[in-house]
Each structure stands twice: as structure tokens, then as C-alpha cells.
């Protein structure tokens, strides 16, 4: 355990010293600034156009609108966190194997799995900071501008974080036997597949096309990242939009808790695979 923590700290220190943290925070703040300013003006003009009569209906419509914009912001956060996860994991093992940095580390009295777990833990902590800062920032800026808070924020943002960790883990695993660039290609390809699969499932669900739904489920089994987002959106969307049907950033075909369980098992399986590949590889 001590070695895992030593290597996790090393990973965090590397991210800080190589300005990965700084870049992430600066870009994150830029995103949040644009999101809040844009949202502020959209909200002002939208509020002006809503008729003043029938206050209950107005409030309902307003909340729906706000909820949708917030989910759009969180969708962007999900993508950015997942991309961050993919990039962090992509070059880590492969890069150190190629450069040879790994040699003096692995020749120490430690397990090779300590290296994989240490890196994974370090990146998982980094992503926690990034993902919660971004989704927290989005939710807070919506609240400051409109006074609106969605339901079930905590499960929602946790699922967004889990998606980033999942993508990072997949990236780390591929990086144990592919080059950094190839890993990046594979992981973004898988992410894209998952994205498309998610939409096929949603549309199929609206059209009551069973085959399309099945295709979506199969892609979710291949890579369950998009299911995590759809479950997160489901947790945070208003009951009305859930009842009304499809919205661009809401969700209709809701992944079951079983799918979330599957995603966690998938993540653990990926991590074990990374350990196994790294254990057997010549350095």
C-alpha cells in the first residue's frame, strides 16, 4: 500500500510540475466563465419573452428551460472530463516504457502492480478535482443566475466523475501495450462508438424500434461510458422532461442501476487487465 501511495503522489506531483493541473484549471475556468456569461444573457432574454400571466405554468417552463441548459453545460463537462481522462492515461505507461524512466522504478523491491495502481490512483484523484470543480462550477453558476437547483446533484456529478475514471482506466490499459498516440486513437474511437450507440438507443426508444435499442445496449456493453452520462442526466433532469420525452440533453432510455454496476465491474476488469499485461511485459 505504501508503494502505491508513493507512486500516486509522484503522479500528482508530475501533473503539477508539468503544468497539467494549471492548464486544466485555466481551461476549466474559461469554460465556466463562457458558460455563465452566455447562460446569463440567454436567461435574461428568455425570461423577458415568457408571458407574465399564469405564474405556475411560467415557473414550470422556466425550470424546464434552465434544467435543459444546465444539462447541456454538464454534458460538455462530461466530455471534457472524459477527454482529460483519456489524455492522462494515454501516454503514462507507454511513455515511461519508451523513455526508460520506468526501469529504475520497477527494479526496486516493489510489485509491478504497485506502479499501475499508483498511477491509477493519482489520476483518479486528479480527475476528481477536475470533474467536481467543473460540474460543481456549472451547477453553482446556474444556481447563482436563476436560483434553480436540480434534484439529485450528488449522484449525477458522481456518475460524471465515474465516466471520466472509466475512460482514464481504459486509456491506462491500452497504454500498457500500445504507444501513446495509438492509445489516444483507440480510446477516442471507443468513446465515439459509445456516443453513437447511446443516440441510436435513444432514437430507437422514441420510435419503439427494438433492434435500434438492442444495438445501443450492445455498444454500452462494449464501452459503458455513455450509459453513465445518460444515468447522470436522468438523475438530474426534471421529472416533467422525463415524462414528456426526448430533449437534446435529457434521456429517455434510462440505463438501469444494473448497467452502472456493469460499468464499475468493467472498470475493475480493465484495471486488472492493465496489471496483468504490465506484469508480463518486457521493459
Amino acid at each position, binding site marked *: 500500500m*505504501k*508503494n502505491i501511495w*508513493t507512486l500516486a503522489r*509522484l503522479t500528482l*506531483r*508530475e501533473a503539477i*510540475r*508539468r503544468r497539467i493541473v494549471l492548464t486544466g484549471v485555466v481551461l476549466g475556468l474559461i469554460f465556466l466563465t463562457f458558460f455563465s456569461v452566455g447562460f446569463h444573457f440567454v436567461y435574461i432574454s428568455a425570461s423577458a419573452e415568457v408571458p407574465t400571466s399564469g405564474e405556475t405554468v411560467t415557473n414550470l417552463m422556466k425550470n424546464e428551460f434552465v434544467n435543459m441548459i444546465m444539462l447541456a453545460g454538464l454534458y460538455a463537462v462530461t466530455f471534457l472530463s472524459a477527454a482529460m481522462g483519456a489524455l492522462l492515461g494515454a501516454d503514462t505507461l507507454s511513455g515511461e516504457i519508451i*523513455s*526508460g*524512466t520506468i*526501469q*529504475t*522504478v*520497477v*527494479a*526496486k*523491491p*516493489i*510489485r509491478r502492480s504497485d506502479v499501475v495502481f499508483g498511477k491509477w490512483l493519482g489520476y483518479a484523484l486528479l480527475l476528481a478535482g477536475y470533474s467536481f470543480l467543473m460540474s460543481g462550477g456549472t451547477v453553482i453558476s446556474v444556481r447563482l443566475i436563476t436560483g434553480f437547483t436540480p434534484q439529485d446533484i450528488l449522484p449525477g456529478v458522481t456518475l460524471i466523475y465515474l465516466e471520466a475514471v472509466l475512460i482514464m482506466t481504459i486509456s491506462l490499459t491500452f497504454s500498457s501495450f500500445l504507444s501513446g498516440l495509438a492509445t489516444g486513437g483507440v480510446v477516442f474511437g471507443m468513446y465515439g462508438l459509445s456516443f453513437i450507440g447511446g443516440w441510436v438507443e435513444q432514437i430507437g426508444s422514441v420510435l419503439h424500434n427494438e433492434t435500434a435499442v438492442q444495438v445501443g445496449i450492445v455498444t454500452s456493453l462494449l464501452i459503458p461510458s455513455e450509459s453513465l452520462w445518460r444515468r447522470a442526466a436522468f438523475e438530474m433532469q426534471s421529472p416533467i422532461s422525463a415524462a414528456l420525452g426526448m430533449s437534446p440533453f435529457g434521456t429517455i432510455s434510462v440505463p438501469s442501476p444494473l448497467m452502472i454496476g456493469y460499468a464499475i465491474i468493467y472498470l475493475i476488469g480493465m484495471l486488472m487487465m492493465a496489471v496483468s499485461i504490465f506484469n*508480463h511485459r*518486457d*521493459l
Partner: protein
Amino acid sequence: MTTPAIRTEDLRKEFGDKVAVKGLTLQVEQGEVFGFLGPNGAGKTTSIKMLLGLVAPTSGAAFLLGAPIGDRASLARVGFLPEHFRFQEWLTAHEFLELHGELFGMSASDLKRRRDELLERVGLADFRHKQLRTFSKGMLQRIGLAQALMNRPALVFLDEPTSGLDPVGRRLVRDIIHELREEGTSVFLNSHLLSEIEITCNRVAFIKHGEVIRVMEMSALNQNISMLTIRASGLTPEVVAGLRQWGDDLRLDTDQVTMTIRGETDLPEINRFLVEQKVQVFAFTPNRLSLEEVFIETLGQDGVQ
């Protein structure tokens, strides 16, 4: 009988259909400075990597300090400076040594003491708070050497430890190896600089195609004296004729004689003869075979083939 520092039995490594190490069998005793010589591509670095558990052997067996390779308790007593030393360059010298000390499982107080001691020893104490990316190649090699010695190892692997160093740096490494030898540490030295090997090692192994083809005590070099050069005035024809009793193959260039002799035992007699003949001797130089000559004789001109 003590446990050997390194023992390998027919250690073999294939990468696909390429045989990198054919069958390495050797033994290094504790406290010995052992040179590992061979042309490029002879499998030296792969052999070291197998011993350290970085590369899995295809077949064969090896033991470090009595334990099979990969044993963590024995790795805690082993130090390693790799050939292409690339380190965590975003760390400062202090942090770098602390990291490696922690990975060796050293206690915090011992680690700090050893860190300061080694930075001083490799001449980098003034750079302790500088990040490694600001270091020159030679400085990196020195901090890498310090890293390999953090745990006061019983056995150190040095893969080309002087390749990036200037003469002063090389001298430092040589002195450190001497100190290690005096402390009883075994050193496994892979170097192309034969003069370094010649000065520092007790024994050397010549390897080719991943096989040991000859193991030689360094002291054997001194017993192989075959040439003598004498620079002197008063080398009269009588003196030269007298010298021929030790060796027929003799060449005279004004004030210098170069001759083939039978061995070291001839030297005192020749010396006595010159003194008796009242020859003014300015230089009396027995030329032993250099390690380089032995290297080429053993491994061939072309090295790899």
C-alpha cells in the same frame, strides 16, 4: 562458502525469432568488481535486465544474492544505474533521491541522511533543490549513480556508468567503485571503456551472442608481459648482442630497444645486466597486453561476427 552475488545457469532470451541472449552462465562472487565485456548487440543490457526482473528469461535460471530473480527481498539490496538513464526530470535532486529511497523501503530518517551523504559524494550538493531537467548529461549520470547507492546495496549494476561523463566525472565514478569494493559491495560493470574496466575490475567476462566465451582474472594481464622497451644511452653493439640472450626479436632505434621477452620473470635479470654494462637507462617499460588487445583477440576485429 559465501553465497555468490550473481549466479546464472544457461539464461536465455528470445525476442520473437531473434536470440538476444543464447545461454548465459556465470558466477560473480560477493565483493567482486566484475566487468561485463562484449561488442554492441552481444546481449549485455538484456542480460542485466533479466537479472533485475525487467525482462523475463525465455529459459534458464538466475539468482541474485542467493534468491531467484525477481525476489523483492533481494532487490532491496540491489542498486541499478540503467544505460539510458532517463529519470523523473520534474523532480528536484532531493525529491528524486527521496523517491527512490522510499521505493527501497528506507525509513524517513535514514533516507534523509543517506540522501545528503550521497549528494555530497557525487558533487551535487549545491544543486539539491534544482529540478533534474536543468541538469547536464554528466550530472544526470551522477544523480543516477547516487540513486543506485541509496540503499547501501550489497550488489550494484552499472550499465555504462561513464558514457556521459567528462574525465573528472569518470574519475569520480572510478573512485566510488573503489570505495564500494573496499566496503565489500559487489559491482557488475558493463562498460565500453576498456581502460575503466582495466583499472577497476577484479575479473571480466567476454560475451558474444549472449554467451560467455571467456572469463579472465585481471591480474592475468600482468603475467602476460611479452614486450619490453628500453630507452637508454650507451647501447653499444655488445650490449645489444647481450640482450639477445633473452629474446631474438630485437629492434634498435638509436637510443631505444624494443624486444620480445618470455615473461615477467626475465625483467630483473635484464635490468641487472644493463646496470652491470653501465648503460644509462632512462626508461624501462614492460608492455603487457592491454585489455583492448585481449578483447580483440577474444572477440575478433569485427566484434559482432
